[in-house]
C-alpha cells in the first residue's frame, strides 16, 4: 500500500528579512512539511554596517559610539568591555565610584534588555499585552538613563578611566522610585505569562538543547544557563566591582524556551538586587580617574569579555600605537547563540520556530555588526 500514500511536497518558505517576528532583518529559509519544519537555513548580513572596520578609522574615544550600536538594547553593556580593554592597554586606574556607577547602569540596562525580551517573546507567543507592560517599565529605566547619560538608547557614557558624567544630584530619589516600580512591573509580567497554561504548553519542551550541545555550539549567557551550566562571567571571571556585590546566578535544567524565559525573569530580579546594593554602597569620590589627555596606548593586544544580557560580549583590541585602534574585534553573543538555531528548530512547528528565535533573544545589530 506504499504507493497509495498521499504525495506531499515540501514547501520552501522564506521567513524574513521582512517578517514581523524575526527580530530585525534576519532571514530563515524554512523547508516545511505541512506545518512542520524539516530544515532551516539562516541567512544573516542584512544589517551589516561594518562596525569593526569602521572602528579602525576612528579615534579610540569615538569607538564607543559605534559599539553602542551593535547590541542596541544593551548599549552600556557593550561599552564596558571596550573601555576595560582600553584601560588595560593604557594601565589606567578606575576610581571606585566610577566602577559602581558602571555596574549600576549596566545592570539597569540588563533589566531593560530582558524586559524587551519579555515583551518580544510575549508578542511572538501571540499575546499583545506583555509588550506594553515591558515597555511601560523599560520607559522608566530609560528616563533614568536620560537623566544620567543624556541618551535613551545610545549612551556613549563610559570613558577610559571612568564615566563621562557623575550621577545627577537627584539620582537617589529617582532610583528609590524606580526600584519598587520595576519590582512591581516584574510581578505583573510574571503573573501575566509564567503560569498561563497556554504559554506553558507553547514553550515547555520546545527548542530544547542539551547542556553538552549548548557548550559545543558556544552558547553563553542565559541560553547556556537555561541548560543548567552555571557560567556567568560576572561571577566566574569577576571584573569591576562584582566581587563585592551579592547576587545569585540562576540556572534552569531543561534548556527549552520556557526555561530561557523564566531564567531571564529571574535574572531581572537578581539585577535589581545588584542595583539596590549599588544604591547602598555607592562611595564618594571622582567619577573619572587620571586619564592622559591624548589616548595613545602602547603596542599590544588585549581581550576582555563581559557578561552582556545575551552572553559573553568580548572585545579583542589590538593597538599598534598611534591614535587609531588597529583592530577592534567583537565577540558577539547573539551571533554565537544563533548557531544553535538549526539544532533547536528541527522537527518543530512554524509557530515554534518563531518562539525559539524569540527565546534566543538575538539582536541583529550585534549579529551582523
Amino acid at each position, binding site marked *: 500500500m506504499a504507493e497509495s500514500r498521499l504525495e506531499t511536497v515540501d514547501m520552501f518558505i522564506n521567513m524574513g528579512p521582512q517578517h514581523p517576528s524575526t527580530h530585525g532583518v534576519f532571514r530563515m529559509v524554512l523547508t516545511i512539511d505541512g506545518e512542520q519544519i524539516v530544515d532551516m537555513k539562516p541567512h544573516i548580513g542584512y544589517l551589516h554596517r561594518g562596525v569593526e572596520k569602521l572602528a579602525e578609522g576612528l579615534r579610540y574615544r569615538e569607538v564607543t559610539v559605534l559599539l553602542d550600536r551593535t547590541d542596541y538594547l544593551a548599549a552600556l553593556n557593550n561599552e564596558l568591555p571596550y573601555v576595560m580593554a582600553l584601560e588595560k592597554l593604557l594601565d589606567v586606574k578606575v576610581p571606585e565610584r566610577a566602577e559602581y556607577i558602571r555596574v549600576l547602569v549596566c545592570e539597569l540596562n540588563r533589566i531593560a534588555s530582558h524586559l524587551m525580551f519579555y515583551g518580544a517573546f510575549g508578542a511572538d507567543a501571540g499575546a499583545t499585552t506583555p509588550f506594553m507592560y515591558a515597555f511601560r517599565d523599560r520607559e522608566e529605566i530609560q528616563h533614568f538613563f*536620560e537623566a544620567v547619560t543624556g541618551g535613551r538608547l545610545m549612551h556613549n557614557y563610559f570613558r577610559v578611566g571612568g564615566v563621562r558624567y557623575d550621577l545627577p544630584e537627584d539620582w537617589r530619589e529617582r532610583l528609590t522610585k524606580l526600584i519598587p516600580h520595576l519590582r512591581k512591573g516584574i510581578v*505583573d509580567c510574571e503573573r*501575566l505569562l509564567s503560569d498561563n497554561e497556554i504559554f506553558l504548553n507553547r514553550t515547555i519542551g520546545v527548542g530544547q538543547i542539551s547542556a553538552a550541545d549548548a557548550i559545543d555550539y558556544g552558547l553563553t549567557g542565559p541560553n547556556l544557563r537555561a541548560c543548567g551550566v552555571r557560567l556567568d562571567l560576572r561571577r566566574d571571571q569577576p571584573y569591576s566591582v562584582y566581587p563585592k556585590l551579592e547576587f545569585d546566578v540562576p540556572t534552569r535544567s531543561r534548556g527549552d524556551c520556557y526555561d530561557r524565559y523564566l531564567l531571564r525573569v529571574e535574572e531581572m530580579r537578581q539585577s535589581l538586587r545588584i542595583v539596590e546594593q549599588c544604591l547602598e554602597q555607592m562611595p564618594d569620590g571622582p567619577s573619572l580617574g587620571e586619564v592622559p589627555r591624548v589616548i595613545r596606548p602602547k603596542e599590544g593586544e588585549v581581550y576582555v569579555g563581559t557578561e552582556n544580557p545575551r552572553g559573553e560580549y568580548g572585545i579583542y583590541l589590538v593597538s599598534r600605537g598611534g591614535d587609531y585602534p588597529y583592530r577592534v574585534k567583537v565577540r558577539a553573543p547573539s551571533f554565537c547563540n544563533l548557531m544553535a538555531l538549526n539544532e533547536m528548530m528541527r522537527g518543530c512547528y512554524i509557530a515554534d520556530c518563531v518562539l525559539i528565535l524569540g527565546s534566543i533573544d538575538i539582536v541583529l545589530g550585534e549579529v551582523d555588526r
Partner: protein
Amino acid sequence: MLGMLKGLMTTMQSHFRKPVTIQYPDERPDLPPRYAGFPGLIWDANVGEPFCTGCQVCARFCPTQCIYVTMKDNPKVGDGTSKRRKIVDEFELNVSCCTQCAVCVEVCNFDAIEMTHTFEMASYSREQVMNLQDMLSMKEKGGP
C-alpha cells in the same frame, strides 16, 4: 485554568490603572537637564559672540563627520571688546547623520558646544534640515 485566570486578573487590574502614556504634542515630555538632543553653540553674553572659535576639533573628532566649521578673524578683536582672535564663521551640522553622541561636546577646548534639548527636527525639505545656523540654539552662558 488557574494560570489563565491569574493573567486575566492582572489585565483587569491594569485596566483601571492610570495610563502611562502622554499625549505628545499637547503634553511635552519632561526632559532632564542632561538630555542630549542635537548639539548647539553657546553664546557668550559678556562679549556678544559665540564661544566657538572655529578650531575644528569637533569636526575632526565627530564619528560621523557631520560637522562643518569654518573660522574667520574676529572683527571685535580690533576694538578690544573680545579676546578671541579667531571666531566661528560658519557652523553647519548635518542633522541627517548626527547621532547625538556628544563627542563634540567632550572634545571642545572652549566649552563652546552643548547638547540642546532639540529633538524635533522633522521638516518638509532637506534644506531646512541642512541649514542649521538659525536652528541651533545660541544659549547664553556666563553672564556678568
